């Protein structure tokens, strides 16, 4: 059973619809997803090969309850141990895994939980990724904020007390070029202590430029590490090039970024293999670049505008919790972010176990912070959202709720040096 991703819009021309249908139904009509497009930097790196070797050889059905019990007795967690923790055999041991994960979290992070917020500055996109609300065939209100509008949004967010911001765009170089994103970073440094980016992957020199503009953390979701499955979901556009995306974090590191974040979008493919590959991506890059801060996200598929049936299939909350606990036990030093895609109930629980970073005051739409934060009627058009969020808590409420759980909310732990 798979999601039904394809939705036709009445607004598309006959030609556009025809092309869309051919992309969906005729694999030979689609570009080779393993081939770089012009202008894409090719990195000579052994990381991808190592990660893929681990993923391909991972047979999670072979692990037993005995293996899992033994792992939980080990003082450290090897790659083999991690594979057992991600396996179905570990599901009955979720409580023990959570206990162990909490211990590791407290050793490395104490009881602190970092709070940040995303800011979408544009939702134009040149790609057809079938599960995403921003995809170029989806009929949504498109928008790109001007510099003045970006600054206004940032002021509204900074006034709420937020100190860390994550700037996002749709993946369109034409509409949101590197210069435009760089200007947004410069503005962000005026209002925030820490600026992160979640944009389309770029080349090393462009990461270097964005770093000079004030960005210091780069998040790129691989969506799925299964390149064959990736091909079926990313039908058109530069995002279709799987290996270029894979090396994005390494290029960001070479561009001077202080930290990088990773994720698979759970529900797109075999989630156990994707979770394994995500963690191995972190593991091997950390060994190669030990000075870099690394973090993991664990988003699950969500409904989008014009398709409210999209869901994460067999990745239920229990499976998500298992993945997060396994991540924490295997990589105790990495940050783990849990997004507002998840419910307030789940996020309140998971910060007590393993998550170290959560978003608050979230909008995945464009230019709507003032109306959302103040309730003030919007006097300008707003762009539609990338996906539906679940946890809509404001910074103030989130801060109080974290304290209420006996944890310590932290708005900044960062210094530009």
């Amino acid at each position, binding site marked *: 059973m798979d999601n039904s991703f394809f939705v036709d819009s009445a607004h598309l021309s006959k030609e556009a619809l025809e092309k869309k249908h051919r992309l969906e139904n005729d694999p030979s009509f689609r570009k080779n997803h393993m081939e770089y497009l012009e202008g894409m930097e090719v990195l000579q790196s052994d990381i991808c090969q190592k990660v893929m070797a681990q993923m391909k050889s991972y047979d999670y059905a072979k692990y037993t309850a005995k293996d899992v019990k033994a792992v939980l007795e080990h003082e450290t967690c090897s790659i083999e141990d991690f594979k057992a923790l991600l396996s179905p055999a570990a599901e009955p041991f979720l409580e023990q895994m959570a206990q162990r994960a909490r211990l590791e979290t*407290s*050793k*490395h*992070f*104490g*009881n*602190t939980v970092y709070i940040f917020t995303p800011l979408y500055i544009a939702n134009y996109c040149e790609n057809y990724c079938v599960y995403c609300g921003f995809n170029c065939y989806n009929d949504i209100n498109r928008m790109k904020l001007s510099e003045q509008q970006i600054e206004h949004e940032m002021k509204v967010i900074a006034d709420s*007390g937020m*100190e860390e911001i994550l700037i996002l765009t749709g993946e369109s170089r034409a509409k949101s070029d590197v210069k435009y994103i760089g200007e947004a970073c410069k503005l962000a440094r005026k209002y925030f*202590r820490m600026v992160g980016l979640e944009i389309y992957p770029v080349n090393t020199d462009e990461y270097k430029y964005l770093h000079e503009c004030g960005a210091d953390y780069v998040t790129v979701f691989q969506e799925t590490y299964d390149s064959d499955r990736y091909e079926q979901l990313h039908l058109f556009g530069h995002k279709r090039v799987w290996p270029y995306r894979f090396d994005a974090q390494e290029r960001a590191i070479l561009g001077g970024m202080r930290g990088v974040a990773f994720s698979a979008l759970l529900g797109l493919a075999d989630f156990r293999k994707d979770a394994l590959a995500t963690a191995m991506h972190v593991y091997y890059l*950390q060994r190669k670049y*030990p*000075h*870099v*801060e*690394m973090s993991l996200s664990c988003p699950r598929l969500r409904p989008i505008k014009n398709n409210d049936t999209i869901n994460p299939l067999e990745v239920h909350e229990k499976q998500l919790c298992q993945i997060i606990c396994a991540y924490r036990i295997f990589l105790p*030093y990495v940050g783990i972010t849990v997004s507002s895609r998840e419910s307030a109930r789940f996020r309140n629980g998971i910060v007590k176990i393993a998550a170290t970073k959560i978003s608050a005051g979230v909008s995945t739409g464009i230019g709507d912070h003032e109306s959302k934060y103040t309730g003030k009627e919007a006097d300008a058009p707003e762009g539609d959202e990338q996906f539906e969020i679940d946890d809509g808590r404001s910074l103030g409420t989130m*801060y109080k709720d974290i304290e209420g759980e006996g944890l*310590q*909310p*932290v*708005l*900044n*732990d*960062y*210094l530009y*040096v």
Partner: protein
Amino acid sequence: MNNDDKLILGGHEFDSRFILGSGKYSLRLIEAAVQHAGAQIITLAVRRANTKEQESILDHIPQGVTLLPNTSGARTAQEAVRIARLARELGCGDFVKIEIMKDSKYLLPDNAETVKATEILSKEGFVVMPYMYPDLYTARDLVNAGAAAVMPLASPIGSNKGLATKDFIQILIDEIDLPIIVDAGIGRPSQACEAMEMGAAAVMANTALATAGDLPVMAKAFRQAIEAGRSAYLAGLGRVITRGASASDPLTGFLRD
């Protein structure tokens, strides 16, 4: 305890030999460290002090407590120097603990960069307390660079594994004429006591308290352990037989005057 037994750092005198580390911070932890562990020095991560009004740790430091800003987040000597200068501008005083780490997994200190930063900052009048991996040559370099103390790690930071580097810390205590402050990895009061018995000048801890079930009680336990260890050191530890038996008749009893 002998009232004249002071910890002297850069000309400043302290009665307490417990220093609260940074990292896992909360108001309750600071209160417990000061009231129950008797801490007179509290480490402060400048990157956490560099925040807006809601939660600045600076607001929670009680009067009379000496701040020890650290340079966590620095990956090179140059970055550490910049953070130290920023700390001084923020009003944190002249003490600085140098932490330079180029490893996000184990957070082990980079000794070579640490020596460089120590030299620059001591010339600028800072009371420099470098966190280091216990290596005799580095410790000597730190002395020459103008450090006010040397702070070897006991085991990886936050690990609560105790004195994994015991033998090497003992060498520093024996050979270096500066206070040796055992930093990082001390997980239990008994380990703090052992470090003090060895002749450490002070012990720094954070995680051991922060992750304890009852913070004030654990804070008190640390104070008692550190005082006990210090007293034992000052008293001179009794003979410890490590191998075989000791002959009751002296081996040289046959010798004549």
